[in-house]
């Protein structure tokens, strides 16, 4: 077995730092750049309707970019991508309707490509009778190609507050903190109880069916110095709901952010492996980085 020399290790560390720093500085900077383009010079941008290939201006689509939420990162690393959600009011069949669009913007070669509208969601916002206050929602129109995954789907139904929190999280993610994946390996060495799906920095636990034996070992490890890198809010394990019985959760990952959409909990996590990602419904949100940013549903078996 070839042992790495000190200089090789130092070079690897430098490269790791450089790549990470580039990724970190570009997330918030690119988000700000996209927002400025949308609000100040939207005429320079073009959109594609779902499943159509004719680039259109925002005026053709009835999108007022001033109404758009802040861009949210959808892919970090090489060829970064952002999602932007906008809501515009329109008359549809003589009904006041909120038209929500979710557009994917990819950044390549120093410029923004054509925005691909992933989903168009219509919500009838007409005044309702006192006997029926429920809002009528039209069937969402989805783009059938890439990109489309649990992340995009959850962003169409995420509340405005949570969407802003998510954007804020991504902007604060580029703080120059270096992911320490070595400490993730330490956590993997522990015997995780089947009941423990997640563990927060403050000792809170996310549980499902199964044994709790070994919980104290986890909490003891958590209390040790530098147990978690500064960027991690805790640890999360992918878990999939099954109709009969229970599946034990998978390997722990660093929990970065969590959100709830349409009654399902989701986690943004950082790991170095995505083996078996498809079976666990894990979506990769990074490319070309020394770590993987992933988005996963947390479907606890209760």
């Amino acid at each position, binding site marked *: 077995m070839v042992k790495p020399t000190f200089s090789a290790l130092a070079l690897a560390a430098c490269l790791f730092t450089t790549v990470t720093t580039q990724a970190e500085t570009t997330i918030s900077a690119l988000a700000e750049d996209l927002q400025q383009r949308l609000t100040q010079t939207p005429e320079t941008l073009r959109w594609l309707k779902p499943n159509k290939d004719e680039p259109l201006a925002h005026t053709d689509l009835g999108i007022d970019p001033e109404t758009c939420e802040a861009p949210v990162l959808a892919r970090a690393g090489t060829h970064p991508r952002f999602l932007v959600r906008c809501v515009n009011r329109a008359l549809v069949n003589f009904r006041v309707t909120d038209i929500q669009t979710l557009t994917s913007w990819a950044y390549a070669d120093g410029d923004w490509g054509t925005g691909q509208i992933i989903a168009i969601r219509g919500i009838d916002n007409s005044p309702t009778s006192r006997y029926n206050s429920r809002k009528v929602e039209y069937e969402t129109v989805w783009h059938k190609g890439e990109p489309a995954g649990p992340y995009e789907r959850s962003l169409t139904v995420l509340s405005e507050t949570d969407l802003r929190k998510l954007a804020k999280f991504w902007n604060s993610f580029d703080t120059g903190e270096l992911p320490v994946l070595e400490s993730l390996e330490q956590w993997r060495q522990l*015997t995780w*109880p*089947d*009941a423990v799906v*997640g563990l*927060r920095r403050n*000792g*809170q*636990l*996310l*549980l499902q*069916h*199964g*044994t*709790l*034996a*070994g*919980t*104290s*070992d986890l*909490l003891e490890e958590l209390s040790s110095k530098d147990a978690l890198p500064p960027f991690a809010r805790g640890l999360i394990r992918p878990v999939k709901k*099954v109709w*009969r*019985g*229970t*599946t034990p959760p998978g390997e722990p990952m660093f929990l970065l952010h969590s959100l709830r959409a349409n009654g399902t*909990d989701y986690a943004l996590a950082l790991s170095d492996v995505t083996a078996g990602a498809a079976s666990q419904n894990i979506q990769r949100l990074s490319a070309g980085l020394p770590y993987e940013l992933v988005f996963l549903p947390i479907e606890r*078996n*209760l």
Partner: protein
Amino acid sequence: MATQDEANAILPTRTRRQKRSQTATLVLMGATPFVVLGLDPLHSEVRVFRDLQACQTALPGAQDYCETLNAEAANRHPSLAPKYTSRHQCESDFAHVTVNNSCENGWCSIDDLSICERKADGHYRPPFSAFLVDQSILDGTYEGTKPAPETLDDRQLQPVYSISDETLSSSGDEGQGSTYRSHTPFLWHYVMANGQYLGNQNLRDPVTRTKSQLAASTSRTFTGTSQRGGFGSTARQTMQAARS
């Protein structure tokens, strides 16, 4: 009076043959006059109090007495509780959720869990989570009789522990394909320090047990690091006997 060993020998027999043996019939016939008179020399009725407040609710006129009963049960806890050399094994038997809502709805605090504690002797013990009191002692409080708790024997007052449903329901149902049967950490049961099953977490009514079953044996030490301790096995057997 039946000894512990005699009772343990009788228990499985009663379970399997459903009290149909001639010997059992004769024993029951012999005990009938006592039962009719409300004097059962073989059995005692006990109440399990989840906490001090539960006792004080049941005995509104003896709130201070509840405090002394609870304190005395806590005093007896270190010497009576089952001891484990392995924390993992102790948690395997006892760890469970005590506050269901927060844990089922989302992230829950460590305070919502019952996990094993390490004492000065280096052993791990389940936490003292409840206490049992002989019903006759409780009845006496209505007449103003309040014997000093330290004078009560272990059959009349002792700490009670809560064991996970997982422990009581387990055995060999794991590892079948990609899924396996598992039990919720949100359910638990009351057991005595000797492993005697008392009831599930919703237990409110008095429990009748033989006096030998209520006798607290000296604290047992479970060694090793295996997944299952002998304590869980005892609790399972006595639960099945109690339900039959």
